[in-house]
């Protein structure tokens, strides 16, 4: 289990951006009140700062989460050490 977990966690980190993209579509299609539907309504309303803000926040959030996953990696595989 532990040995198999490593590549999966790496995969999760790489997939996060795609997951976020998917969330936007899903939120729009099913009318779920999240960042995705906010982004789309902001575009329709012509709210430039909101669109820019959501884009920035999403990039920062995803990058921060990837960094966090990378830093948590030694918990799964003790051979990896943070330098």
């Amino acid at each position, binding site marked *: 289990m532990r040995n198999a977990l490593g590549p999966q966690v790496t995969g999760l980190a790489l997939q996060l*951006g795609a997951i976020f993209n998917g969330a936007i579509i899903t939120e729009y299609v099913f009318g779920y009140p999240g960042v995705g539907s906010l982004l789309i309504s902001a*575009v329709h309303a012509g709210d430039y700062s909101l669109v820019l803000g959501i884009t920035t926040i999403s990039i920062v959030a995803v*990058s921060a989460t990837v960094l966090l996953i990378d830093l948590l990696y030694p918990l799964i595989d003790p051979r990896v050490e943070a330098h």
Partner: protein
Amino acid sequence: MSTLKIFRDLFRYNSEFAIGLILLLVVLTVSVCSFFSPYPPMDVYVVPPDVPPSWEHPLGTTSRGQDVFWQLTFAIRNTLLFGIVVAILSRIISLFVGLISGYKGGWVDRVLMSINDTFVVIPLFPILVLFYFIMRDQMSWALLAVITALLGWAYDARLIRSIAMSLRTREFTRQAVFSGMSTGKIVLQEHLPFVLPIVFSTTMNNINWSIGIEVTLSVLGFTDINTPTIGGMIYWANQHTALVSGIWWWVGFPVVLVIMLFIGLFLLAISMNEYIDPRSRLSRLGGQA
């Protein structure tokens, strides 16, 4: 072995390749039909609206008075062309970055790969939406293709880099260096041929990916809606609430066609992998893997 013979063998022994090729040929035939269309693509109310599929209109007509079949031929042509343009542009970038960073190593590799990794992890969709928002009316088909290509090369650059790194330690590279070949020449003449089969397979996947992006964006109305594309058709259908009023053929047929294209390209990419991997080729010929 000549290329034609490879294709014939693949078609005979590899059912994925055969099915993929047939699906792709169907899609290509439909897109070629656009050159024989009796109606200009953006004209509305040229036929009676909301007619279900019949002999006269094989795939029915839309609420905007367009024949779904002829509309579809233009849509799939533009969508396919978009995918191919994005794939070619992003292949050029990923080949350049992958080969150079794999061959050079050191700080060049580190710089290029940190840019590469950034592009792998960032969510692309909000960025594309932001681009649309800034460009608005100037957002043309070609501009979207360039932006998508600039965002879509990263995965494959890493793949190419990993191959280039192993090629660098091979003896023929050393021979080339000692014979005084320049870096550009080594990369282009010695390494590129080894990478090409993989590039072909990733091209298929990249076409799929970029069509997915394009369809998503245009379904939401975030592209040039005056160019007929698959996503654009679904967008107009949604605008006219086609599914609620029971005009399923307006949404159904574009979706079916684009799924055929997806599956066809995917199967081709898989079968290409089978061809590249010598072990699976052996097992096909009845040898031990």
